[in-house]
Each structure stands twice: as structure tokens, then as C-alpha cells.
């Protein structure tokens, strides 16, 4: 990858480089950060390192603007979490808050400047139906089409996405961190046992530090789209730097990775955090993580590098398309055995578009209130 494609990472890894940066480079930096949903993060870094006076005048409004959006997101997440945890107290069972919402709730530095596309919660699998019913009464409704709905419920590690009817907030309700059909099978009961309670909410938990990192790593390095690849890597970097303040963290992390069977995604997380964001990963942890055989490791380096950079035309080279396509296939291969995967991909490729088109037609022909009134008047 050329230097320009890695500009975002290199400045995030070393914010002091922003001092004296020329406007042309700022122009590229801001655009990459915006597309990667990391502009709010850039603001927080600038503030943390007291660099705002070094930011050229024309650039400042973009950082301020992103900061305001991020603060709003953070407030909304707190509001929705308060609501959701309240609704789910009736279950009298632990609710584990996952990913971004967990960083907000646990007050982790990874939450600073972050924006959210959804909220992720996890409950024990045998309480999932009750949880869904309680949420449904409060206007959180699953809105996937019938094929997707069945697919989620039968094979996935979560319900089809729930959406609040009025506020349109999206909620993923998990019972595990990987699909039931996936090759790797981390034990959900273990996650619940190790989870840490959150002050101020009687039923709320977050994953223990090691599991939090493992979950984020697993999620990122088994992803199919890498739409938030850069942002997720920045999350991992922030988590690692924060938890590493406790020296015992690294050996615990490596060991936990082995116990949960997630050593391979952990390897990729450590590898790319170190390589792209200069995360200080100790030699010992790196050596113990499950590195694939050399030829494979070399290929994965080339693939992930292209998938992780900001989703921006300036970060694309002629292999980006191929790399993303291969990783898409890989993620599905890791998620499902072939006898399930092939019919699924067939459905997605040929039947879903037809159904979507049919639904669209139906929606077009659906009578509107204005139309009905006009019709009645004509009669």
C-alpha cells in the first residue's frame, strides 16, 4: 500500500505529526477520517494532546462538527441503554452490553469521539424469547424479511436486528459472539461468568477486559464487509493500550484466547494494531499468539491491509477489490459449513433481489392516504 493510503493510521498512531502538517495533507486526512467514521476520534486525540491551536483554521470546523455529532451519539446511547436495561430488568438475568455501547457504559477511552450505528446486548440463549417479547411491547420490532428472519433465528448468534419504531435506533440482541454454525465456538456461558458488573445498573454487565478484546478481534477479523474496519482497529488499539496499564493483562489475554479458542483472531488483532497503529504489543504476547504458517500469514497481511484502511477512493489500489472479495468469501466460509453456505449465497444472489424488487413494487402500488381521500371524493 502506498503512503497516502496509510495516512489516517500514521497520524492516529502519532498525533504529534499533525503539528506543522500542510493543508493539502490535512485535506486528505480529514476526508479519510470522515469516511472511516473517525473524525470525532481525531478531535478527541487533538484535544488530548492539546494540538487544537496547531490545527489550521479551515480544518477546525470539521473537527468541531464531528465532536458535536459524537457527543450526541454518546448521549443517545446512554439514553437508549437506560431504557433497554430498564425494560429487561423483569428478566432478572444479567444483560451483557457489547462493543461500543459497552465502552460508553464502562467509561473506557475507546468511547471518546466514537459514533454508533447500533447497540449490542447479549442475554442467555434460553431467555432470548422472553427478552424479545418484553422489547416488542416497548416498540422494538424485528423488521427483516421472512428469509432473513428465519436465517438469523436458526443459524446466527443474534436475533434479526430490532428497531425502535419511533426513534429508529437499531438493536442487536445476541446470545453468543459468533454464529452457531461458525468453526470457532467460544463458550457463551464462560463469557457470562467472567463478565463484570457496571455501577449504577443492577442488571448490566460488560465483558471482562480480555473477552472484550477477543470479541472485538473476532468481530473484526471474521467480518465480511469491513465497512468499519479502520474504526474497529482503532477500538482495539485503544482497548489494548488502556488495559495494558495492568502488566498482568498481556499473559492473561493470550491465555484467555487459548481457552476460548480465539487465538487466531487475537493474533491478527495484535499483528495489525502493532503494524498499522504502532500499538505497543510485547514480544512475548506476539510470540504466543497463534500465527498462521508463513505463506498464509504473508497473504493475510496483504488482504487485511487493504480491507482495514479507510473506506475512501484515495485508499484504493488495484488489488483492493479482489482483497475484499476474497475476505468476503473467507468470512462466510468461517461462518458456515458449505452445505449451508451454498444455498444461502444462492438465495442472496438470485432470490433476494427478486423478492426485494417485488416488495418495492408492492410499496409503490400501496394506496396513500391522500390517494384514498381523493378517490372517495370522486365517488
Amino acid at each position: 500500500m502506498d503512503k497516502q493510503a496509510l495516512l489516517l493510521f500514521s497520524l492516529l498512531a502519532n498525533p504529534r505529526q499533525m503539528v506543522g502538517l500542510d493543508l493539502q495533507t490535512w485535506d486528505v486526512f480529514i476526508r479519510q477520517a470522515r469516511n472511516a467514521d473517525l473524525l470525532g476520534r481525531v478531535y478527541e486525540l487533538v484535544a488530548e494532546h492539546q494540538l487544537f491551536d496547531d490545527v489550521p483554521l479551515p480544518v477546525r470546523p470539521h473537527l468541531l462538527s464531528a465532536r458535536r455529532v459524537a457527543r450526541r451519539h454518546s448521549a443517545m446511547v446512554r439514553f437508549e441503554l437506560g431504557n433497554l436495561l430498564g425494560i429487561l430488568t423483569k428478566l432478572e438475568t444479567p444483560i451483557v452490553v457489547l462493543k461500543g455501547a459497552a465502552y460508553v457504559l464502562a467509561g473506557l477511552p475507546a468511547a471518546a469521539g466514537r459514533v454508533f450505528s447500533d447497540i449490542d446486548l447479549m442475554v442467555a440463549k434460553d431467555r432470548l424469547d422472553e427478552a424479545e417479547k418484553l422489547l416488542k411491547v416497548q416498540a422494538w420490532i424485528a423488521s427483516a424479511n421472512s428469509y432473513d428472519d428465519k436465517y438469523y433465528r436458526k443459524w446466527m448468534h443474534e436475533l434479526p436486528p430490532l428497531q425502535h419504531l419511533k426513534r429508529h435506533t437499531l438493536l442487536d440482541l445476541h446470545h453468543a459472539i459468533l454464529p452457531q454454525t461458525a468453526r470457532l465456538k467460544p463458550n457463551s456461558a464462560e463469557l457470562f461468568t467472567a463478565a463484570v458488573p457496571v455501577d449504577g445498573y443492577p442488571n448490566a454487565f460488560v465483558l471482562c477486559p480480555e473477552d472484550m478484546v477477543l470479541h472485538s478481534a473476532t468481530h473484526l477479523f471474521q467480518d465480511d464487509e469491513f465497512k468499519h474496519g479502520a474504526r474497529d482497529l482503532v477500538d482495539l488499539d485503544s482497548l489494548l493500550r488502556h488495559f495494558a496499564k495492568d502488566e498482568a493483562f498481556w499473559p492473561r489475554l493470550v491465555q484467555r484466547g487459548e481457552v476460548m479458542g480465539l487465538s487466531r483472531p487475537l493474533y491478527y488483532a495484535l499483528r495489525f494494531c502493532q503494524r498499522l497503529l504502532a500499538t505497543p504489543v510485547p514480544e512475548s504476547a506476539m510470540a504466543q499468539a497463534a500465527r498462521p504458517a508463513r505463506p498464509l500469514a504473508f497473504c493475510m497481511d496483504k488482504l487485511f491491509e487493504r480491507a482495514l484502511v479507510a473506506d475512501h477512493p484515495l485508499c484504493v489500489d488495484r488489488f483492493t477489490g479482489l482483497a475484499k472479495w476474497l475476505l468476503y468469501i473467507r468470512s462466510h466460509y468461517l461462518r458456515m459449513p458449505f452445505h449451508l453456505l451454498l444455498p444461502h449465497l444462492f438465495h442472496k444472489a438470485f432470490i433476494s433481489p427478486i423478492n426485494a424488487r417485488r416488495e418495492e413494487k408492492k410499496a409503490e402500488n400501496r394506496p396513500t392516504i391522500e390517494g384514498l381521500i381523493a378517490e372517495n371524493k370522486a365517488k
Partner: protein
Amino acid sequence: MIVADYSEQALQDLIAGSGLRFEVGPFTVCLQSSLDKLAADIRLMYGAYSVSTQPFADFHVRLDQPFGLRRWFRPQTNFTQDGRTPFKPLPLDQSFAMFEWGLNWCVSSQSHQYLIVHAAVVERGGLALIMPAPPGSGKSTLCAGLVARGWRLLTDELALISLELPGEVIALPRPVSLKNESIEVIRKFAPQQVMGPIAHDTAKGTVAHMAAPRESVQRGGETAASRLLIFPKYTPGSSTQITPRQKAASFMELADQSFNFNILGELGFQALRQVLDNCDCYDLSYSDLDDVIPELEQLIDKSGESAELVGALVNSTAAVDG
């Protein structure tokens, strides 16, 4: 240097190559496109705008034809900002309108250094008249009419309300978007104004843009103090009626018409409160531009005098206190 200093060919080469960078109000826009006809439209509608020399642009946007069959069969145009496509493609003859809508989207979704309200704003004698209104209320027609009679155009769609200078509106002069019958109305009312390409069968009907007058463009980015808040309603056949309106309800209406009131929280609330403190609020129903414009001129001139009177009173009491 202004955009019209380029010949049409030079402009087209620039847009097809490294991009045209120009100043639109407080923003710098970088436009690239592989479309043939766009350069002529841009030169016509944005001729008076300054070419930017700084290497930083706020918005990098592109208009291109999508790949595939639609290149030949009912050709389309696609708007992208940094590779992201906020909208579905539109028919090729709506390219200029799509540029306008795309830029609206960029500003309203990414510029939270301002409180942004869906409203037209025009200025006379340093005082701003704000006209928020839902589409179809005749807001743009009235705005175009006032501008053709010498009012300064601050904006036709996106009122940028300052979060730093209390009650001030920042000018973002852009072409005024006219729909359906309004196009003919303004053509007849102000034949001297420059009209852009006509886009038929858009989601909003037939759309054409009236270029912002040169003087308004040159004063882009300049602020004006809010003084009148008027909710216009075009009512066929009615005489001009201006009736006072409650401030609280006007506040709520303005907040409702805002793109980022919810994002800004208290900052937005304070900015809007300041606007309402400054403004007299009215409902307006009109049908005839020749009738309504003198009335509005009288109203804003009078409100200017009363503002001066208050200012003089404040100053004299300050003098007494001193």
C-alpha cells in the same frame, strides 16, 4: 479570480481533471465530473463565485454517469462525496439540480459549526428576514422576487445561524431553486435574472434555478442580524395579509425545521433563542409579488427604525448610568 474567468472549455478540462475549487459562502467546494454538459451550467450559475487557491476543500464532490447499461439506456447521473453516494442516481438532464441537492446534503449533514434551519434568508439595510416554510409554501418564489428587487440573498434553503455571534445569520448565497409554476412567475416578474437549466419530472416536479445576483455572491460568508421571522404561505387570489404570530410557537416551528437542533443540544437552543429575541414574528399570506414586496420593505425598514430607537435608548440609559 472568478469562475467565469475560465472559458467553457478550460472549465470543463478543470472539472474533468483535478477539479474546480470555488468559494460558496463560508465553504470551499471541489467539483469533479466526467459529464460533458455540466461545465456550461456551472459557468452560468456559479460564474461570479471566487475560485479558491487554498489546497483545503470542505467538500469534494463528483458527478458521473454510473457504469453499465444505463450509460446508453435512459442515461443517469450519480452524485458522490469522497466515494460515498447519499442518493440514488437521477436522469442525466437533472445533473445540475443533483449538484445543488448533493451540496445541500453535504452542508446540512456535516456542518454543525452552525445551527442549520430549512429557511430562506434575505437582507435589506443590514437586517435579515428569515422565512422558514415547508416545500410548496411559496417561500422560494417570494425569496427570488425579493432578491430580484434588490434584497441581498443569504440563502434560499439552508439558513446558517451563528453559534458564536448571537442572532447573526451567515450568508450562503446559492442559486434559488424554483418549482413548477414559480419558474414562469419569476421569469415574467424578473426577466433580467439569469435562469439555469430546466429539469423535468424530478421528485419535486419541474425544477429550475435562478442564479444569485453578483452582489450577493460577493458578500457570501458575511453575516446579517436576524430581525424578522415570517412564515409565508402562497394563497391563490388572496390579498397580502401580515398577522403577528406568537414567539413560542415560532420557536418550536423553527426548531422543527432545523437539520441539527438535536445534535447541538443546548448550543442550538441558545442560538435559536437569540434569533427569537431579535425577531418580530408574522404569518404572511400572499398571491401577488408586486403587492407583497413593498409591504415587506416597509415592515423591515420600520423594524430597523424601532431597533435603532431601542439601541439609542439603551445607549442613553447607559450614559445616564455612567
